[in-house]
């Protein structure tokens, strides 16, 4: 097990380094000069040079990249003289557009994105598993066909449409929910909770549909396995067959997908957060793309990469716990 973990972690690190390098390359090659953008309206060539030097953009590519990677582990200091800015490790750079350390910006918003992800995950897992199981058990009945139709509809509605429709119906017309307000949990827990209801539903709908289908298909597959028939033949009670023989193998693929989906979502739900004005990592990324704020986009990309890599490792570990067939010999 430790060796297995070690190889997974080291390969994960390589993946992250490559993500880092490619993102950096893309911005270095494609993006226009951020200094010009900061310089703005009444700009002069001298001012552009000054800003470039200040941001370290006048250095060659490999120097910039090297300093960036070192900064992640050792931290960096920007500026010189009496006016410096410390960026402690893990330093993911410094936002061009808002002069803040990218790591601080992420840390501030990560709890918000996590709240969105956890709430949505609970909803979609519940709905997906229950829906999928019912559908499988009642295969071919009206309930099954209805569920299948519903999942198709849910998967077809784009997030942003559902979000706006939901907001119009629940908030504007029925007034069951207030408009989202920016409140801290400690100040107004009720409003805080209500803020997240719509984002949770919007995110969960798409995922729940996919999970329903996945669960249904897996359970049906397993129920057709020989060993299940054998179990029936041996006269085992149905509930036991379901619990012990069918559900567990049917759920392993769901766990795999869930690990990746959830980890990806922690890195920010771009569309949902933007539509509902939720100040999470996803909205920050979307805003930064519009502003061409390279360090922030880099930071969020790396974070998302990191979370997916970690998510995968966790899934692999959990996998061995659920499914004895894939247990590694220590």
């Amino acid at each position, binding site marked *: 097990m430790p060796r297995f973990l070690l190889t997974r972690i080291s390969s994960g690190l390589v993946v992250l380094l490559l993500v880092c390098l490619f993102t950096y390359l893309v911005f270095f090659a494609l*993006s*226009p*000069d951020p200094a*010009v*953008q*900061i*310089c*703005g*309206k*009444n*700009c*002069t*060539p001298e*001012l*552009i040079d*000054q*800003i470039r*030097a*200040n941001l370290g953009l006048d250095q060659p590519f490999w120097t910039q990249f090297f300093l960036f990677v070192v900064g992640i582990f050792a931290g960096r200091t*920007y*500026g*010189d*003289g*009496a*006016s*410096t*800015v410390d960026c402690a490790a893990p330093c993911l750079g410094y936002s061009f*557009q*808002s*002069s*803040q350390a990218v790591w601080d*910006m992420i840390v*501030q*918003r990560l709890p918000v994105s996590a709240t969105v992800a956890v709430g949505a995950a609970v909803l979609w897992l519940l709905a997906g598993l229950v829906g999928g199981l019912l559908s499988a058990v009642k295969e071919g009945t009206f309930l099954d066909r209805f569920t299948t139709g519903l999942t198709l509809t849910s998967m077809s509605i784009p997030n942003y449409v559902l979000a*706006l429709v939901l*907001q*119009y119906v629940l*908030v*504007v017309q029925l*007034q069951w929910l*207030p*408009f989202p*307000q*920016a409140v801290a949990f400690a100040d107004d827990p009720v409003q805080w909770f209500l803020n997240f209801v719509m984002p949770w539903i919007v995110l969960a709908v798409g995922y729940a549909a996919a999970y329903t289908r996945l669960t249904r298909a897996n359970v049906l597959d397993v129920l057709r396995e020989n060993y299940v028939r054998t179990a029936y033949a041996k006269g085992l009670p149905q509930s036991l067959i379901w619990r012990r023989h069918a559900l567990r193998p049917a759920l392993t693929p769901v766990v795999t997908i869930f690990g990746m989906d959830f980890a990806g979502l922690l890195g920010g739900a771009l569309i949902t957060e*933007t*539509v*509902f*004005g*939720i*100040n999470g990592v996803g*909205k*920050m990324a979307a*805003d930064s*793309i*519009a*502003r*061409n704020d390279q360090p922030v986009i880099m930071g969020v990309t790396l974070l998302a990469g990191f979370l997916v890599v970690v998510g995968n490792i966790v899934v692999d570990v959990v996998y061995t716990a659920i499914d004895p067939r894939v247990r590694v010999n220590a």
Partner: protein
Amino acid sequence: MKLHRISTAVIAVATTLALAACGGGGQNSSSGGGGFTAEPAEGGTVHVLQNADFSYLDPARGWDGGVNNFFRLVYRQLTTSAPGSAEDPNEIVPDLAESLGEASDDGLTWTYTLKDGLKFDNGDPITSAEVKFGISRAWDPGIGIGSPYLKQVIDAPKGYEGPYKSGDLPTIETPDEKTIVFHLKEPFPEFDAVLAQVNATPFPVDSGAGDEFIHEIIASGPYKLAEYVPGSTIKLTRNENWDPATDEVRAAKPDGWEFTIGLDPATIDERLISGQGADVNAIAGNIQPATLPRLQTPQLQERVLEFPGICTTYMGLNTTKKHMDDVRVRQAISYAIDRTTIVNASGGTQLGDPSTTILPPSVAGHKDFDLYPSEDGTGDVEAAKKLLDEAGLSDGFTMTLDIRAQESMQAQAEAVQQALERVGITVELNLIDTATYYETIGTPSQQHDAAITGWCPDWASSAATFIPPLFDGRNIYEKGNANLAQINDPAINERIDEIKAMTDIEAANEQWGDLDEQILEQAPIVPLMVAKGVMLPGENVTGLYSSANAATGGIDYVGVGLKDPEKG
């Protein structure tokens, strides 16, 4: 873009309305029947709903339409623009100073005297040393990325890099606690307007190094920072150390302000329309064009607030390109353009007025003329064809127009395309990503034949920040270039120098208007329209006046308050 030239943050807001943040203008009366001009009552909290976060809380760094207006609530300068409710809201008036500056005979030395009783929010007095220190921050290469005028106008030793790196700035003298003396590089009759720029804000000596002011505000205005969550909320409460007796500009009636940031533009409109709860006390920027049809009910019409625009949307013609270097071709294009279609493409007459001049009506110096007239503003095809014949281009030609990949600008470009097709000019559209649009067209090597963009003045009391940056041929840069036409005409350059040197601002403004006409005779740009501001304030808000200088034509925050502070 740093300034009112449609900040990058604003691009995010204005997904459909070009120049949205630049809407509004200098007239001091608001239209709409909602009674937004009633005197506000004392107390309550005004809510502001907005999409984009403020660029910076540090006035040496931030400098764009949205944040300048916010700064006005928390920061003061020696001078500032008159409140939006003033007879001439474009006027520059004394703020921390007792009166406007006294210039020496040679125009190189300007002296100001501070009022009594000025304090920061921590209770420390504001003296000439703090004013000088705050201003000198503009020279710091890492911090002074905001308004460039202080650096351009005030003399400084070569290589001076702000107080943190280079120490004292000897060209600003403080003979005593109340007096401050500026030495300029060359005479600048509008120096009062330069000191009204937000980066002339005083700060305690030695504060604000590095990123200290990224999350902090040391207030000199009527409000101080109570809470700031970047990308989410800003709350302001009263600054008890601000003495209303020292401030004739800021009514500051509400007890507090709450800015909610990061809201989807459609959601903002939805909230303003439904006006639930505290949203009756809310104001926001321009509504989305898509929301316009929904405002036609009598109840909502009563709440619609319209402000004239101060920014000109125009098409720059690159005079270094083949065909475009021929003045007859540029004039032909000026004749052929159909402004009626362009205004319709931009959301109709409620959102914009056609423009035939460089300077919009709300900017001082505006002169009303139309060198290339046509019936109903739909273009004079015959006159255009005749000029093209003279230029030997009877068979027409093909040109490339740079535009931002954004709905309303594409619609404008298509209107240009159709209009020019009538005279045989085929226009190919070159769509450029919103985030990189200005960088691309501001780089002459990447520019094509023409580009659609906009310009807003940095102060509207004269045309000094409108005409020179766009048409002074000596300022054509390899990058960050604003002279899109790349026109370098000695006659124009000379006139710019002459008018800039005039000490009689009113006379100068008249001459700017004449120069506007002189420039357009050569048709380096084609003015298209002036976008207006259309807003839907909450029903309990009042004191809404536009300010060209402080708010880029939007609502001047300093006069805003609530009708009934108990409501919402």
